[in-house]
């Protein structure tokens, strides 16, 4: 059964849900439950899209308004985008569940849940669209929702962090528009499949290299790759817990998605150059992020720096660019989203029980001794970040190292191996400080705080994908099979 409208639903359902959520602003509980329902429905539709793509064995393409491909706005669900959208909505549903049990003031604001839904819609739309300008529009939706949620954070520095980030991302969106302009002047099309054909036919256009450079910069800002990362720890640490769990896990994957599309669809001829840059920056990010995470003084900030390192691993996988390495990069991105969102939620949970609401180590030291369940989850999550069995982090790191060893990239393997050891050091140091060391005298743990349900669900998934990784790896292999044969995507979009 073919139903191209399926690819529209993961975007439209959260968007419409957000609008209806705004109408329900007077009824807070109803609005929250409605948002959970809308997000859950979006997850169900994205799973249905994934199943449809898997069964059909071809990308699901929707031409909006019935305009044929290079002229209308195209939405494409292929293996890559369907997998990433499923990942997005799994984490987003957990985020809404966390927000339902959160005691922050920010979740009580009438615009919180609608903005959360538009955040999800922006991310899903940016990943499903087959058109560069539509991608820009959805990326703006994503950025504005995320920034507003952070600006309203309980953390007094939320506004400052949001302001900083917004400057960066406005620059990034200027760059994206410039890249769109360059590509349009050079090739007269913005549909990615059409562009891929035209670029392959005429790789000598003078504006092609500027467009590649600008787009790379855009995606580097979006996923906080090493030289463009400086806003990221501030922004992710100051955001409200449910939001920071989204920003640091799935939202940074938008840049990863962009790089995957750049190297395997748009600029296949120039891909070796992009890959080299990504690999160098990825290794730099792994080392820098790991060292900064080991040196920082705040639990949430440590996890934000750890995102920098973990995205570095994904970029190294994209940088190697072989089929096995790309599979490893996809699996790594998926698993990192689950682990990192769970860890940030546990950090937020601990901070909500601390005497002062903060995740700074001098405040939360010893708080975890009274919270054995959180300690247990944090320990498993820490193993996941460090890549130790039986968690899914082990699967992703094993795939990545194996793909590197197959190509005998020994130097890079040594560097990223030491980066991986750093992640063990900082997670275990944090575990020891928060859940092991006795608290200073006089600091009482608050009797009630946020709910632990959402991180427990995510850690359950972490263990599940650790024990039973075959379906995830198989779907990543399927997606990579299509990515390495871009004519499938192009043919599905343009028809004929």
């Amino acid at each position, binding site marked *: 059964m073919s139903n191209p409208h399926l690819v529209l639903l993961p975007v439209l359902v959260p968007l419409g849900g957000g609008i209806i959520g705004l109408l329900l602003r007077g009824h807070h509980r109803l609005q929250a439950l409605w948002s959970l329902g809308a997000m859950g429905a979006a997850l169900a539709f994205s799973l249905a899209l994934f199943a449809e793509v898997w069964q059909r064995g071809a990308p699901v393409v929707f031409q909006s308004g019935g305009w044929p491909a290079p002229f209308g706005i195209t939405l494409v669900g292929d293996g890559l985008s369907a997998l990433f959208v499923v990942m997005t909505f799994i984490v987003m549903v957990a985020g809404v569940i966390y927000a339902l049990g959160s005691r922050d003031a920010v979740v009580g604001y009438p615009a919180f849940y609608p903005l959360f839904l538009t955040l999800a819609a922006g991310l899903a739309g940016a990943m499903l669209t087959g058109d560069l300008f539509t991608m820009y529009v959805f990326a703006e939706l994503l950025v504005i929702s995320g920034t507003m949620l952070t600006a309203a954070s309980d953390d007094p520095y939320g506004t400052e962090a949001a*302001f900083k980030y917004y400057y960066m991302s406005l620059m990034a969106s200027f760059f994206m*528009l410039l890249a*769109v302009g360059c590509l349009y002047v050079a090739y007269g099309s913005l549909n990615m499949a059409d562009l891929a054909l035209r670029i392959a036919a005429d790789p000598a256009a003078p504006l092609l290299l500027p467009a590649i450079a600008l787009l790379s910069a855009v995606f580097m800002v979006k996923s906080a790759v090493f030289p463009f990362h400086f806003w990221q720890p501030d922004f992710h640490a100051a955001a409200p817990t449910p939001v920071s769990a989204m920003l640091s896990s799935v939202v940074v994957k938008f840049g990863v998605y962009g790089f995957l599309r750049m190297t395997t669809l748009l600029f296949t001829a120039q891909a070796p150059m992009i890959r080299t840059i990504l690999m160098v920056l990825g290794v730099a990010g792994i080392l820098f992020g790991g060292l900064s995470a080991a040196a920082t003084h705040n639990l949430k900030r440590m996890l934000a720096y750890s995102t920098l390192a973990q995205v570095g691993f994904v970029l190294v996988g994209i940088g190697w660019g072989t089929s096995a390495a790309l599979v490893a990069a996809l699996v790594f991105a998926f698993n990192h989203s689950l682990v990192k969102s769970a860890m940030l939620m546990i950090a937020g949970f601990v901070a909500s029980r601390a005497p002062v609401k903060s995740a700074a180590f001098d405040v939360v030291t010893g708080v975890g001794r009274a919270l054995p369940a959180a300690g247990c989850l944090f320990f498993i999550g820490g193993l996941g970040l460090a890549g130790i069995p039986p968690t899914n982090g082990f699967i992703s790191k094993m795939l990545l190292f194996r793909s590197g060893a197959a190509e005998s990239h020994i130097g890079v393997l040594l560097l990223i191996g030491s980066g991986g050891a750093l992640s063990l050091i900082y997670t275990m140091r944090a575990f020891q400080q928060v859940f092991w060391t006795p608290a200073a005298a006089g600091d009482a743990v608050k009797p009630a705080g946020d709910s632990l349900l959402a991180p427990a669900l995510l850690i359950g998934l972490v263990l599940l994908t650790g024990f039973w990784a075959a379906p995830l790896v198989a779907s990543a292999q399927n997606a990579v099979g299509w990515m390495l044969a871009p004519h499938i995507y192009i043919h599905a979009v343009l028809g004929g």
Partner: protein
Amino acid sequence: MEFLTALSIGMLFAVGVFQVLRRNLIRSAIGLILMTNAVNLFLLAAGAYDGFIPAYANQLEGTPSDALPQALILTAIVISMGATSFIFAVLVVISGRYRTSDADAVNGLKR
């Protein structure tokens, strides 16, 4: 004419970059607006020299102009309008909280 357009867009962009790098937050927000306009003009220039009569207008002789960059700019203008108003809203909050518009004094996260 093409050269003049390119030069003026480049100058507008340069002035925008210069303003963005200023220490005063309000000036730098104005720099962002200038850069937005420079980018929009760049997009307009992308489709400006192909034809000079309106697209989809009947009974006119000549090459119709490309309508797509104009549609892109309309979208970009709407988005940048929202972005600018949001940036100024955040600036209002920051100026109330820190009592300054000096970028170096807004450094609570560093401490």
